[in-house]
């Protein structure tokens, strides 16, 4: 007996998808296995560590405790969508420059959370960054160089925006 499935339509990193999924299928498994986007990682599977963070309509969510069917109609962003035209996003580049990663496992979730933080506040203080990224666990870095990376990326993104402004 084939399991019951539902049809969902959603956009992931700008690409529209229509898929059949089991109602119980987690969004993270759908992204990783069905869409072949393994950049979103699984850490604790109960919504604590933030490793699986993606953006749903611009807001960060834990894709390990949300069902794929709940994302029907949503616009999802994952780490795979950050680099554009072969160019790293300023956040990715600054994470490398400041060594804001070691094992890299929490990094995609941390990057997506940082995108949301900078969308809400383009010029955060180090204290504000620390408070905001406290949503996500990192076991390697002790957060110091992540904080530095987010601050420098924010400065670069502000500069780019000013240049682009008329």
């Amino acid at each position: 007996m084939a399991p019951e499935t539902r049809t969902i339509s959603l956009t992931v990193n700008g690409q529209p998808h229509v898929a059949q999924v089991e109602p119980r299928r987690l969004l993270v498994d759908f992204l990783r296995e069905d869409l072949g986007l393994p950049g979103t990682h699984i850490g604790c599977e109960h919504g604590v560590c933030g490793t699986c963070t993606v953006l749903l309509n611009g807001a960060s969510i834990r894709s390990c405790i949300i069902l794929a069917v709940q994302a029907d109609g949503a616009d999802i962003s994952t780490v795979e969508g950050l680099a554009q035209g072969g160019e790293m996003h300023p956040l990715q580049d600054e994470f490398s420059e400041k060594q804001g990663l070691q094992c890299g496992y929490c990094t995609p979730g941390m990057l997506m959370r940082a995108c949301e933080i900078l969308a809400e506040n383009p010029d955060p203080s180090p204290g504000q960054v620390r408070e905001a990224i406290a949503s996500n666990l990192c076991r390697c870095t002790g957060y110091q160089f992540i904080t530095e990376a987010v601050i420098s990326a924010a400065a670069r993104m502000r500069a780019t925006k000013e240049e682009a402004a008329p």
Partner: protein
Amino acid sequence: MTATNRTGAPPVRDHSAKRRWVGQSIRRVEDPKFLLGRGGYIADRVTPDTLHAAVLRSPHPHARIVRFETAAALALPGVHAVITGAEAAQLCDPMPDFGPDPARHTWRCLAAEKVRYVGEGVAVVVADSRYLAEDALELIEVEYEPLPAVTDPERALAPGSPLVHEALESNCAYERSFDFGDVERDFAEADVVIRDRLRWHRSGGQPLETVGAIAEYDPGTGSFTIDTNTLSFTSYLFMAAATLKVPVNRLDIRPVPAGGSFGSKLFANKPAVIAGMCARKTGRRVAYLEDRIDNISNCDHHGSDRVYDVELAMMRDGTMRGLSIDVIDDYGAYIQFGVGHHGNALAQVVGPYTIGSVRYRVRAALTNKNQQGAYRGFGSEVNNWMLEQMVDKAARELGLDPVAIRRMNFIRDFPYFIPTGNVYDSGDYERVLDHALDLGDYAHWRDEQRRLREQEGRYVGIGVITAQERSVFSATEFWFWFDEPGAPVTSTPESVSLKVDATGGITAVLYSCAFWGNSPETMVAQLVAEEFDCSPYDVSVVYHGSRDGLPATGPGGSRTTVMLAGAVEGAAVKIKDKARRAAAHLLEITPGDLEWADGGFRVRGDPERKKTLGEIAIMLHLFKHSFPEDVESGLDASKVFDHPYTTMPSADRKDLGVFYPFVGHACHVPVVEVDIETGAVTFLHYAAVHDCGTLVNPRSLAGHIVGGTAQGIGTALYEEFVYDEDGQLLSSSFMDYLIPTAMEVPELIIGHVETPSPYTPHGIKGGGEGGRMMAPAAINAAVNDALAPLGVRLTELPMTPERILAALRAAGHAG
């Protein structure tokens, strides 16, 4: 200084050459793939045809397995196999271990006859998906006959305790007392003896990625291929092969990047064995990827769990004379590494101090908990904490300044043999201390402490600890415990192959070495670039599988960078030797008239006559007949770099020999505030200075220092695998097992001091574990300093708010 085994030191090296790449904080070469979400972790390698395994875990801490009912699970569509522990015992042999008496504390990949801790695997289901496998787990019925459990190590050693392994007839897996130096004399001559009882509870690495393996079995060749984020040392591959009952040369374990380890993926063969067993049984590719509860409750990698009774013999002026340690370590239900963790402690048991004698009594208790494994520090961090606690207590009881008492006892002459026989190769402890006090703004914070106490009624404390950071272990520490060891191995090598292609590009092949969140590729790229004057970004690094690999021990004990540096250096010498002969032939000059400069060989005194490595390489690869008959085509070389400084223990074990010779040092100076109403601890300042010899990549080391300190903060304040008296694990998720977030970890002020090792390439010492080896001691010292006016001293980690409030109440403060 009683050890006499002074022979066997390697030659002292000349480190005067200028370095171009070693010492630079270059961007890590590993990073781009991780930043793009293309890390290639084990879970990323699941293909659509891969089956998934899920393990049924015991809900009982101690119970006999009476009966299994698996028919309903097997009947579920999509389920391919159900293997119970009893069947697994037929399919697989026991897991080999370094325990004292493996035949009497037998460890298997799934429990066969009885379970010994909550979370121990009793059966595995293989199904089309993880979802179906977990559905099937719920359909398995297991009848257990519960047995009384023991979770307290002292109760476990007392008569009448339930026995974890009946065959052992005791829960004491190991007991021995060692004397190093004249302990009796030092205690007899002491003015005072400082005594304390200290308790360190268990925490663990808990990387964000769990352990996983994907196995395939080819019945046509009888061979396994297992991809895993854990590591089975090439040199010890026979252990996993023995469990799977396959010849070593039919097992290829291929390392894939690990999302963190901190020791917890060291030798974690069990998931690879389970995946392999399932692959052979089903004839399919099978993934076993632990979930978080598996990883917390059944990982075989909980950290140290110790009860100490310690005595420190002192003179009234503050001179430390002798140290007597009586430690019980709660190993849990099995004891895979024996008491090797105490070898780590004995490597630096006297810290940076001129303590002349040591008595070390260790008892290994078995209890109904998940077994101990490795966690950053491997037991040496616990010794650091214990000793620094004792030094602070001595300072307080003798009315001496905690900084002054450390300074006056510092070892100053190197190399220095400590009473156990291990050597400290080099160091400059005062320089580290002074730098840390400076960065820690020590005088200012002492004033602030007083002011805040007097004017605002706040409890601020400053910790100052000075402690050791041993690196590069020798195999002897796993067997010098026994008079007649079962396997007195003496090899701990590491290997690298360097291959220069026809265009001059260099590929470095690492054996049995995994990416664990450290930076092996960056280290090797910088070391190769240093040898060949190329860009580190042009070096390609390959992780070789185990089967046809060269001898290698893999990461652990802060050995990777030192050992890889030796292997790279050795392989580079061979390549340059051949390249020199080839260049000499092409330039029609004798090899001795050439010198290496700027990425090639040039004629001494005539620098325009030269051949670059690329020019030499293309000739060696493609123009065989341009060279004499005996020159083979190609340009590559391998080096098996053996441990550079190991000496044998004496027969009476009064001298354990040199087994952890490259010994770094650090001083941490945290400033904390303790809220005596809530028991909360917050950081006001934190300075850390480390000396790991010559730095390869200062930024990378700083990352290890901050990250390790963050873990040390967890150990000191938050993290504990809590088992209740009945044996239930109360902290089995990240809801209860509290890992510090960015709000709990302060910004560190980091300083580096470099006293090069005289014995290693470039003078490098290992530094990957340092943060966690210092922070628990430092934070405990700071909390005790804060609470000193109330007469309160914390002697148990982690210092949770509950424990702090309890200590305050016990001292008569309402809290």
